[in-house]
């Protein structure tokens, strides 16, 4: 069931288009990440859904009601901000109770709800503290409790984890997913961190220059990027271009690359993307088996990080390639060594250039 619906929304600031014709929907209880670089319009889209920004045209519906012209306060949203935006002159209980009081819920009913929300974010005994006495992670939890205590129709998260250090961030990611599952709230999460988007959400929408480039389940988008931007922004990719012949791609130096997917017709130019972790490095030259690609390349750099290695290689035609390898079989390759890269045709994804 669709809970939040954005229809043909566009927004310009001055002469600069920020969003062009965005249409998307967010299912009831889903956790969607809006992923994109800065300037991609992801925050503007979130702010349009929240009501802080009015779209030039298009509609926004929340919970089946058109809210395009509804003020923020009447949209029944919960929002967590990048700076947490806790009220510094109120204690934790007063912060969490603020939205309840606006809905006329006070006294013991409010106290129960506040206590339950604080329990959900695992800060049950922090009610009397002032935000100043809390750590960054704790403030984050209070902000989350404040946003969910009113049982909003949609929970909007504007890069809420970006101010936390790495360890705390990972801890909060786990918490965020748990709280989202427990509360069952439709959640829209803005982030520029692709790993965060992949691991937290059950849907990812990639934005670039005001457009949604691709959306779907994280694995779907990661395994089958449709454009070069999607392939590059969500993880790393190796790109190879050539001319299509007999349902394979012929590189400039004559080597053939097979793919498990449809290609343009013969004679046309095509580009494929291959994830660096899908490639395996072997010494020498094995006869290629069916459904497999091989390419010889020279190692130009090795980054040794203990359990994993990152190789930078140069193909025969001069293209730079990247391979992620587990530190598993024998010795790591040396710089200057000529090796053979092996990967499956099924992992070779044609993309729009």
């Amino acid at each position: 069931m669709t809970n939040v619906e954005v229809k043909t929304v566009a927004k310009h600031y001055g002469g600069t288009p920020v969003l062009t014709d965005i249409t998307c929907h967010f299912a009831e209880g889903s956790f969607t990440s809006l992923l994109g670089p800065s300037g991609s319009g992801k925050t503007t889209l979130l702010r349009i859904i929240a009501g802080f920004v009015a779209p030039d045209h298009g509609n926004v519906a929340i919970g089946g009601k058109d809210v395009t012209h509804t003020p923020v306060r009447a949209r029944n949203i919960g929002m967590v901000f990048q700076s947490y935006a806790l009220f510094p002159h109120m204690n934790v209980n007063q912060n969490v109770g603020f939205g309840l009081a606006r809905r006329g819920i006070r006294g013991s009913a409010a106290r129960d709800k506040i206590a339950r929300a604080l329990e959900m974010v695992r800060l049950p005994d922090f009610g009397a503290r002032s935000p100043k006495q809390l750590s960054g992670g704790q403030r984050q939890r209070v902000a989350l409790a404040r946003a969910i205590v009113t049982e909003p129709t949609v929970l909007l998260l504007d890069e809420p984890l970006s101010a936390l250090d790495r360890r705390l961030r990972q801890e909060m990611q786990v918490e965020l997913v748990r709280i989202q599952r427990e509360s069952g709230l439709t959640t829209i999460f803005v982030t520029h961190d692709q790993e965060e988007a992949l691991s937290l959400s059950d849907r990812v929408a990639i934005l670039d220059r005001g457009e949604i480039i691709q959306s779907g389940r994280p694995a779907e988008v990661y395994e089958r990027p449709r454009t070069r931007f999607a392939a590059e922004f969500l993880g790393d990719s190796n790109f190879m271009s050539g001319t299509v012949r007999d349902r394979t791609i012929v590189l400039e130096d004559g080597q053939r690359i097979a793919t498990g997917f449809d290609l343009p017709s013969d004679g046309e130019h095509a580009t494929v993307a291959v994830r660096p972790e899908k490639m395996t490095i072997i010494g020498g030259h094995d006869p290629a088996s069916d459904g497999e690609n091989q390419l010889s390349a020279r190692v130009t750099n090795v980054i040794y990080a203990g359990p994993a290695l990152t190789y930078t290689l140069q193909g025969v035609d001069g293209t730079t390639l990247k391979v992620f390898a587990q530190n598993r079989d024998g010795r790591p390759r040396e710089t200057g060594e000529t090796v053979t890269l092996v990967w499956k045709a099924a992992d070779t994804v044609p993309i729009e250039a």
Partner: protein
Amino acid sequence: MPAEGNVPASPRSGGNAATAAMPKWVATVALLLPTYAWLTLAIFLPLCAMFAFSFLSATPMGNEQVSFTLQQYAVFQTQPYMIEVAIWSLMIAVATTLGCAILGFLAALALARAGLGRSRQILLILIVLPFWTNQLIRIFSWTMVLRSGGFLDSVLHFFWAGAPSIGFLYTRPAIVLGLIHGYLPYMVLTCYIALIAIDDEIIEAAMSLGARWWTILFKVLVPMAMPGLVSGCVLIFVPVIGAFMEPRILGGPVGVTLGTVIEDQFTQAFNWPLGSALSFIMLAVVLAIFATFSGVLRRNASA
């Protein structure tokens, strides 16, 4: 970049040698000395002299025999009308401070919150403008506006020819009006500084939680800007209670306040001891008021 990185690396490294040679307190004293020396010379010593005068029976500059006495401090007993004068002075000061607080806070809010861009600076300068005009000229220009048949009446008569005069020169509201005009910039500036520091996301958070504008104003903005409001009130209340030019020029016959009485003792009656005594009584009243509210002030200053 490496040069920058070296300085905080170690207190014994080369970059800190100069400061290490001189103990920190020397610099502190050297920086504070001129200010404190000036304050002592120009304010504290004269104040002490005035305090001493307030215990004399007459100004020690004539031929009169001068003796030590506490009679000046009994002024409210010997001249009961002074009680009324003091109460009116306090009420004028409270009204002025309140008026400044309301107008100044709203103006500061508009300046700090509205997306004004470059015009914000021009608007700020317009607010500070009263500071740059001569106080006397400022006050006398109000007499032009407020007298019957003055500017205010002309405007009214333009719209309603037969209207009665609404000029209220020589009333206490006229005094308050003139005082608010003169002291409003203090409040605008202190509130502006407090309000500009409030993150937009705080207000957006309140909106997202369902708050209407008055809830945001009274539950978020006013409490968060309280330190600015309080310092504005202190900055205004103290000088206004002793103000004498506005009461004299705009108040006419009703313009008798503590400030004008004190001024009279020095310039007309040549009774410096009484003037000094009244000044110190006023100082005591102001300090007593602040002491009463100090709990509130301290709580808000730390918020």
